[in-house]
């Protein structure tokens, strides 16, 4: 995976508003780990429709953190889950893990 999470989009959007940056980063730090865990629980329990819903929600956050190829992978993984195709799981997990690590260090 060549991409790494970044705050470019959030910085651009904030137009210098620290209040907005704090709010959105706080939200990501709070919600992302919960949504990742929920996804893993559903995936490991083979509840793939619910897992696809989780991926759908995570997709926006992945895009917000600057992933472009990763965003496309997420779209393909979400669609795959609904068709019984799971080959992108490892690639998707690499994205989630890198975001996890990134948010922990913010």
């Amino acid at each position, binding site marked *: 995976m060549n991409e790494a999470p970044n705050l470019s*989009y959030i910085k*651009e*959007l*904030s*137009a210098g*508003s620290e209040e*907005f940056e704090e*709010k*959105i980063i706080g*939200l*990501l730090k709070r*919600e992302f780990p919960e949504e990742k865990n929920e996804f893993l629980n559903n995936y490991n329990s083979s509840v793939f429709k619910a897992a696809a*819903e989780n991926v*759908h*929600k995570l*997709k*926006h*956050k992945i*895009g*917000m953190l600057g992933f472009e190829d990763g965003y496309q992978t997420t779209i393909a993984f979400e669609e795959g889950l609904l068709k019984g195709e799971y080959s992108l799981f490892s690639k998707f997990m690499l994205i989630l893990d890198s975001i996890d690590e990134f948010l922990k260090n913010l």
Partner: protein
Amino acid sequence: MNCIIIDDEEAARLIIGQLCTQVDDLDVIEEFPNAIQAIKFLNKESIDLIFLDIHMPDFTGFDFIQTLKNPPKIILTTSDKNFALEAFEYECIVDYLIKPVTLPRFLKAIQKAESTPALDVAASSSSTGEAKGTGSEENDLYINIDRRLIKIDIPTINVIEAKGDYILIKTEKQNYTVHSTLKKIEEKLPEDVFLKVHRSYVINFKKIIDIEDNSVLIAKDVIPVSRSKRPELMRRLNLL
């Protein structure tokens, strides 16, 4: 322009709200995490523009649009490109934004919204201070079935029958079973058109085909009339 944001995702509401701060004369009046809360708001307030998420649990953005009799301009916000075709079926949808929404793309959507004329008088009634769709409130009834709000045109209701904890609403086209009581629905219906003729039946007075001693015929249903309700029924008839 004033606007509201409907999205189940807090981050998405925060982002659209932030983008709105970068446009002059665009005021966010309210934000909603689901469509049902927004419908209640729109029954009382009139707005110019809605930022609407499509993919929401229980009640999608498209379900929401279908409940609006005179929808204002709508900009869809979604992470899913697959709905673009469906979006073109709605005249009120002025643009379709893919998340994460960038500022240049957002500004383009606002320009489109500004240059699109309002769909009708009711949709733009904020400038006159009129409440949205007064007629809609009089004629429409929303019922909750499987966590979806379905609109019923009140004049099309034939009969309502009590069935334990539920009521069966029979309309000209379709029947609906709803968890409610006759008393509750009676309060929502116009008194001059609907009449309780039996402890288990409320009828649309205008749909009576004929009346026999203890019953009325409405569509194909024979509805019993209790002895105590018969005088009121007879009083209302335009007898020759």
